[in-house]
């Protein structure tokens, strides 16, 4: 059994940041944050907090030795607010005490007076006021304005999706301690150790080589620790740097939900034009992205929204505009899919509405417009090696769409208050960081003198199985027992200038870098063997199952022997390598180029049963044919697909982020924000791997899998709409996502609420 990480997990022996044995004298930090969504700080009174039991220090923006700035893409985010607060939960002061409880008690004694300013939570209102973080972004193909006249049917409308809390089970956490020479070391629960390092160096006003960031593993990330682990690491580092003591900062669940950003809510306007056969001729869409109070990763996320505005379809005339709208909410951030799912929801809504108007099944339009090999996306890239139609056809052959639809019709005829619904949801998701320079990674491999191997990359294990995949890559290249290979914690002193573990690409990038390092070590070992056995270069030497073969004959030489010999001969048994994705490029000025190394794709069928009496539902099944390329590990890839799908289902149904108009989060705990549990998740998630798919751009022909399957979850929205329609055939429903039981029941019985309003005046 090779999964040593899982063996540790099931025994409770895996360490997360809060589990490390803290150094002697560790202090604990708690964050004082803004209670108001917008205003100027008139006064901050820490007199009482300063003398609170066990208190060690209170730090505000005035105590920052370097820059009070943590914005990555745009420098628009203070670590600690100096003057103007912009959302509830914005950090103002760091309180350090002997225990976490004493720190919180002292924090609660801080008093603040804020002169309030108007609060904006709605992106369209922000747009009207001109509060855009970056100028509008436009992608276009063909000529939309002239295409409408060629359409037989034009449908327009509004589509909205809500935010989503990451709810990684391990909250944001960091443990910092001072190192000699004015440096700092941080154990951080981050997807991007380099970004933390850069941020901390900037805040402390020291060079990057004085900041060491170490990340062993995360208790889930999902994008929530790509950029938003920076602040907490920087605060722990600041306190530690000033006090010359170890400082730990672990957010409580309620703090984590309140203080950190989420998936971006979007409000969008669409207009779609089709010919009478259902062929889409033109599509125009405007995305109002609710970015929150500062840029964070919003501009990059908006880019991906635009890249995926047409999902899996070829549309000859497209104009997609994105607005990055500043509001008084915590800065929204990366979340599995990175703006792609929001865009795909809109095109699917447009198709659904067009089908409704035409009186046909949406899947007719979906199938008719599915991308074909060589079709062009609005940003100029043409799809290569497309398996979309293969996935669609195999799904249909395996499950017989027509048959499912018939049996649903029969069921719906036989049942008055129970209705079944179905939707088909295809996905085509581009793989690469859309910011081209980020598509690089490096690896460091040591072969120790006993033959065991230690590997470091910047890929962070957060449940996606990257460690196991990397072990498999190395074990395969060296042809040795996988148990000889250990993946080390990621650390900025071993791997520098790394991109975060994000964009589904960590296996591709780090795997390829690792492959290069392993190959160069293998070449050195082969030369060493040749030297030992005095074999000419033209005679084939290789290692198989830890035994040296000459031509195809086994020798007595084993892995341990050749390592020992190489070491004695002073052969370099360490290798460092770098990989950069070839071919890709993107010209931001004209929004055209070749941004993606390849595409991840597939199709799914989602079936649900809606209880129209109670407004509650059961997701019966999700059936998928997905192109995984040549999978590195079937259990891991299947687990990624299943987990992503259920997150997508949650986002579309029960996960409801609610802010009031004063920017206060009402769903700020697990008792009010509900994510899928074991009873919610469908019993039948059927994941089929598309056969015979290869992908030279991925490591060993594999394909990225982290994000794309989340999009299948969007299908549940349309399956529910389908069932609602079966219950009220004459009704037109316009409901934003998520489709909570409340929204469904109120929509099914809208006459009842009209009646209530009339009697209550």
């Amino acid at each position: 059994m090779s999964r040593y990480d899982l063996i540790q997990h099931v025994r409770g022996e895996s360490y997360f940041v809060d589990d490390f044995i803290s150094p002697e004298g560790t202090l604990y930090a708690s964050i004082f944050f803004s209670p108001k969504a917008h205003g100027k700080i008139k006064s901050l009174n820490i007199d009482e907090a300063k003398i609170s039991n066990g208190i060690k220090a209170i730090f505000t923006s005035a105590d920052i030795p370097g820059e009070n700035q943590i914005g990555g893409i745009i420098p628009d985010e203070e670590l600690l607010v100096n003057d103007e607060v912009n959302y509830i939960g914005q950090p103002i002061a760091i309180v350090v005490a002997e225990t976490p409880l004493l720190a919180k008690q002292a924090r609660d004694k801080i008093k603040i007076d804020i002169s309030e300013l108007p609060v904006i939570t709605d992106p369209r209102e922000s747009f009207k006021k001109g509060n855009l973080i970056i100028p509008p972004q436009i992608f276009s193909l063909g000529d939309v304005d002239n295409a409408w006249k060629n359409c037989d049917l034009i449908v327009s409308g509004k589509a909205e999706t809500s935010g989503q809390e990451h709810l990684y089970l391990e909250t944001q956490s960091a443990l910092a301690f001072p190192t000699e020479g004015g440096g700092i070391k941080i154990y951080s629960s981050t997807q991007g150790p380099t970004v933390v390092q850069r941020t901390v160096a900037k805040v402390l006003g020291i060079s990057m080589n004085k900041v060491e960031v170490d990340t062993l593993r995360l208790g889930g990330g999902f994008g929530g620790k790509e950029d938003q682990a920076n602040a907490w690491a920087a605060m722990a580092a600041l306190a530690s740097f000033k006090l010359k003591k170890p400082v730990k900062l672990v957010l409580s669940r309620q703090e984590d939900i309140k203080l950190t950003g989420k998936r971006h809510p979007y409000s969008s306007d669409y207009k779609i034009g089709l010919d009478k056969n259902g062929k889409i001729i033109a599509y125009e869409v405007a995305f109002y992205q609710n970015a929150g109070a500062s840029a964070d990763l919003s501009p990059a996320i908006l880019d991906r929204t635009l890249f995926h505005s047409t999902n899996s379809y070829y549309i000859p005339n497209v104009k997609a505009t994105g607005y990055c709208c500043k509001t008084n909410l915590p800065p929204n951030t990366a979340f599995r899919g990175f703006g792609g799912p929001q865009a795909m929801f809109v095109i699917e809504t447009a198709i659904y509405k067009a089908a409704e108007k035409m009186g046909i099944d949406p899947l007719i339009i979906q199938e008719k417009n599915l991308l074909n090999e060589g079709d062009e996306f609005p940003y100029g890239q043409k799809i290569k090696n497309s398996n979309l139609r293969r996935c669609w056809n195999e799904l249909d052959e395996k499950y017989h769409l027509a048959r499912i639809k018939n049996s649903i019709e029969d069921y719906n005829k036989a049942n008055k208050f129970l209705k079944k619904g179905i939707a088909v949801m295809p996905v085509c998701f581009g793989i690469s960081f859309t910011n081209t320079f980020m598509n690089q990674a490096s690896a460091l491999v040591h072969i120790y003198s006993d033959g065991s191997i230690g590997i470091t990359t910047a890929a962070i294990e957060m449940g996606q199985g990257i460690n196991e995949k990397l072990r498999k890559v190395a074990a395969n290249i060296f042809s040795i027992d996988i148990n000889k290979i250990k993946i080390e914690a990621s650390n900025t002193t071993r791997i520098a200038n790394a991109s975060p573990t994000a964009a589904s690409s960590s296996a591709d990038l780090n795997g390829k870098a690792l492959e290069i390092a392993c190959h160069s070590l293998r070449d050195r070992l082969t030369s060493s063997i040749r030297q030992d056995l005095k074999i000419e270069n033209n005679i084939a030497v290789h290692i198989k199952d830890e035994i040296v073969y000459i031509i195809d004959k086994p020798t007595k030489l084993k892995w341990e022997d050749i390592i020992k010999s190489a070491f004695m001969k002073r052969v370099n048994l360490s290798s460092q390598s770098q990989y950069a994705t070839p071919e890709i490029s993107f010209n931001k000025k004209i929004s055209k180029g070749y941004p993606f190394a390849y595409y991840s794709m597939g199709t799914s069928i989602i079936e649900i049963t809606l209880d129209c009496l109670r407004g509650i539902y059961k997701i019966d099944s999700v059936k998928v044919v997905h192109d995984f390329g040549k999978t590195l590990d079937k259990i891991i890839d299947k687990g990624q697909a299943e987990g992503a799908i259920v997150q997508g289902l949650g986002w579309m149904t029960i996960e409801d982020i609610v802010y009031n108009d004063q920017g206060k989060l009402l769903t700020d705990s697990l008792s009010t924000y509900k994510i899928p549990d074991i009873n919610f998740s469908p019993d039948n998630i059927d994941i089929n791997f598309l056969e015979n798919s290869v992908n030279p751009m991925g490591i060993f022909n594999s394909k990225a899998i982290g994000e794309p399957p989340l999009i299948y979850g969007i299908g549940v929205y349309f399956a529910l709409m389908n069932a609602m329609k079966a219950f009220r055939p004459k009704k037109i429903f316009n409901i934003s996502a998520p489709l909570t039981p409340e929204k469904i029941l109120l929509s099914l019985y809208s006459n009842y609420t009209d009646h209530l309003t009339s009697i209550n005046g």
Partner: protein
Amino acid sequence: MFAYINIKFLKLFSIRLTILLDTSKSKTYFSAVINRDKVETKIDFICNQSLVSISINPATSTLDFIRKNLNLTGTKEGCHEGDCGACTVLVGELIGEEITYKTINSCLVPIASLQGKHLVTIEGLNNSTLTPIQNSFVKEGGSQCGFCTPGFIVSLTGSLLNKKENYSEMIESIDGNICRCTGYSSIKNSIKNIESNLHKTLNVDDNYLRTLVENNFLPEYFLEIPKRLKKIIDIKPSSTTISSEKAYLIAGGTDIFLQKENEILEAGLNFIEHDQQQKIWEDNNYIFVKAYTTVNEIQDSLIFKKYFPEINSYFNIFGSHQIRNKATLGGNIVNASPIGDMTVFFLSLNPTIRLKNGKSFREILLKNFFKSYKTLNKEKDEILDLLYFPIPSKNSYTNFEKVSRRKHLDIASVNTAVHLVKENKFINNISVSAGGVAPYPLLLIKTSDFLIGNEINCKTILEAVKIAQTEIAPISDVRGSKEYKSLLLRQLLFAHFLKLFPEQINEEELYEQI
């Protein structure tokens, strides 16, 4: 297994700590005295294999104690409100000769409640090789990031310790465990794998604990625990608090600990005295339930199963398995939450409650217990002791309906119960209760009065729901708008009758009318 004695002394936790490790050959003794100005309680319990004897603030959360004092970090904090299950532990209690293990959320349990008990964390389940449960999770990929995993392993081990070995019983045991990574498919596969292995190995008739040990589900030291617990079981916790005036009285504590942890740490606590022997009984045409009976005990009681065959389907959506193991009937009633599931269920049975004040008793009907939001018809020193109601007659029907955003481990938007006696097609007697539509759990008196004597049909029900609307005053909050709650109650009233008397309600007619 000597790893468990890795006790960390932090100056921050000013406690008097004595740890005795009792193994066959070695005895290790630590003691630390650190000053603190507050009164503490001395508590004795066994954690995994080690005897823990300690003076500490009795309200210290068990989770904090496990992680910070015992340095057992396999138990994780995911939410500190009993909503994720990452901190699940087992608590074994000796009743007579039998030891019973229950899973609980260690974040919601004060350390003092462990007096004389066996606390088991994930570390206490580890053997030199993986247990079959652990093995299944590894094999099926039932763990991804690993943070929630120990909680799942502990919950499932608890399921087997309670002889619940079917797939559906094991699923029920983890309805309080949240995983954000897997989407649960691989966890379901792990459980199927456990189940298929179980049937090959376990024989329920044998000494069950021994069988589990022999099949590697539990480490061997479990067999010695009952004997060891006997030595400490009679030690009563020393008096607890700074001021007993202010001290909180705790039954299960699953809600008050969530809301007032800091206040209880300051003010101290006392536990309601339990009599383990008699909690639910029948006598003289009445069913009696002691206030400290847990949800789980009611659900599992043969008496309730006899008179309310569907009880599992109602109670399984109250809180989570871990909460049901701890939360009490009395706590749910006295908490007076407008959507208390148990209160709404029992209200429809029109029970009487008995309040105890020192040695005197007072009885009132439950429906008269609630005055306004979180205000009770109860004197300060009165303690809810008992609830009783007439045994349901032969022609009686009961139903409970609850809708929440998520079906399990969620708080109701609206819940309602009905208990009625039918004669031919007519309602002889009926009580309908509803939660989430008023400041406290409500008995719909006018609606019930109207229904008495009427024939069960579509027309009657449509009339009844109109009357119900005049009795309620829902407010908009995070559980739903007032319009939704009002509509939902109507729908759930329909649901009662459609479920109980499908032959008397014409669905088509109902559909046309609404």
